[in-house]
């Protein structure tokens, strides 16, 4: 397809320069400057702050917990996200539009509400399903499963919103061709569908990962915020900030931001240019 696409660029006029200046200024004031200040505060006096942080076993536990929760949430969202995307694009069924609208809900509902909702269903005392689960030895709320659940909920649409348009664009013909060549449903998925959507999946996974690492509101309610047990990195930031440990708060925030920025940078470097996939 790439050879058919010719790039037309308008000549840069004073108006374009003005528009560029506005966009750059806006992004600088809103994103770049504040983030760079976090980095500067964190690295105030060298890597000492960060190093001190990594020597605190509670913080290390929190970081590890954050990673574990994020990875689980991303894994769940990837499997379900790809599955739901295929369902939405390839099949017709009653209630499809309702489902599609519902999938955007996590983006519009405040994470705090998500946390409360999960407590209502899975809470060990008085939850709708929680007591039954707890009687069978699975504690959800105030434990890792609940935090994974809350994080997965919040990041749910990210994989789907990346994969659905690509699936729509790719169309069904390649899958039908594979089918007529003898490929079973699983072979078609693995050999045709998955390779055609792989970049969308990678991008969705990275967005979900960045979002999951930074989740705060829902996790705060569901985790119970117990030091050394269910406290995640974002909760550490808040705790340190409220306790006037500014250096620690900035250092932790810096680590979180660093991972997210790294994720997105790596993907934009690895991802092929638009139109060549």
């Amino acid at each position, binding site marked *: 397809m790439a050879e058919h696409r010719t790039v037309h660029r308008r000549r840069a006029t004073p108006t374009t320069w003005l528009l560029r200046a506005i966009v750059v200024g806006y992004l600088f004031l809103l994103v770049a400057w504040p983030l760079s200040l976090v980095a500067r505060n964190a690295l105030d006096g060298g890597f000492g702050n960060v190093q001190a942080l990594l020597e605190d076993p509670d913080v290390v536990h929190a970081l590890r917990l954050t990673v574990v929760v994020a990875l689980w949430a991303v894994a769940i969202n990837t499997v379900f996200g790809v599955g739901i995307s295929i369902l939405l694009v390839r099949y017709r069924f009653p209630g499809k539009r309702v489902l599609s609208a519902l999938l955007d809900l996590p983006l519009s509902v405040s994470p705090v509400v998500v946390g409360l909702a999960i407590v209502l269903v899975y809470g060990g005392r008085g939850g709708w399903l929680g007591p039954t689960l707890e009687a069978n030895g699975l504690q959800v709320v105030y434990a890792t499963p609940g935090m994974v659940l809350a994080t997965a909920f919040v990041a749910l649409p990210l994989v789907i919103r990346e994969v659905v348009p690509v699936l729509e664009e790719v169309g069904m013909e*390649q899958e039908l061709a594979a089918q*007529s*060549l003898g490929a079973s449903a699983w072979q078609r998925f693995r050999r045709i569908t998955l390779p055609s959507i792989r970049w969308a999946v990678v991008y969705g996974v990275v967005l979900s990962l960045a979002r999951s690492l930074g989740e705060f509101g829902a996790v705060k309610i569901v985790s119970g915020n117990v030091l050394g047990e269910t406290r995640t990195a974002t909760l550490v930031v808040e705790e340190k900030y409220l306790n006037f440990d500014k250096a620690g708060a900035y250092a932790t925030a810096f680590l979180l931001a660093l991972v997210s920025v790294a994720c997105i940078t790596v993907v934009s470097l690895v991802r092929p240019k638009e139109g060549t996939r």
Partner: protein
Amino acid sequence: MSIEVRNVTKRFGAFTALDDVSVSIPTGSLTALLGPSGGGKSTLLRVIAGLEVADEGTVHIEGQDATRLPAQKRDVGFVFQHYAAFKHLSVFRNVAFGLEIRKRPKEEVRERVHELLRLVHLERFADRFPSQLSGGQRQRMALARALAVEPRVLLLDEPFGALDAQVRKELRDWLRRLHDEVHVTTVFVTHDQEEALEVADEIVVVNEGRVEQVGTPDDLYDHPANDFVMRFLGPVTQLGDQLVRPHDLELLAEPAPGSVPGHVVRLSRIGFEVRIEVATGDQVVLVTKTRPEVRALDLQVGSPVHVRVGIEGASRVVSSGGVAAAVG
């Protein structure tokens, strides 16, 4: 019979795409499903391939009941209008796909793929990706891919529809020659009557979900079953209440048995042929002649002339159109 379609009906919501269709396609033949867009011919092809499931009726392939068989078990090669190339695989891997699915030994796959790429004149392009090929090359690759698994039948859905006129003509000749070499039972869908007449051994005319007529190109052209087939297969004009081909009409200077008097209202030359419009009463009849014939008659706009169906056994159908009622 290689393909036996019996009483197949297929509906999409309120729309009936196929209405009680029965067709038999003989082994080893090259058959065209011809008809206007939206007439159901592609649906029929997809029902044969198993890409659509018929609501009623049965499909047999080489004597086996395939009605409930999923597409991947039908042993059918399918070629799509827009090629359906696997974009992430090289030309070689595209053609090898069906063989890899069937877990054939690597050595055998390589030999077979190279043999097929030679057949479709793409051996130099084995390592390219589909995006680096022209439309005609992609379609030849798709054909090699479908042939690789040695299908019992080869189905092509408007295979040349997305190509420009020049390439379309080349591929058309090439498909005919390929079929003479490979002999696999082949069915292709087209809305281009010239393509069907030129390439096919047998033509099935499909319109509004029904089969209008089945026959050889000559049969259909010379003995159309009804005025739809007559109109669809070539140029027609109306003389009295009859539909006839413009080149089957005779122009005479003097009245003769069966002739109708009129006068020339328009002459236009297209290449070697001349189209003459003759007004007879309230009808304008189109006649095509060669230039020497027109010169011999010394025809000008306004010349009086007599028209009749000149050729014995010329195809004609009594028209069911409104004009005939007015005249007759």
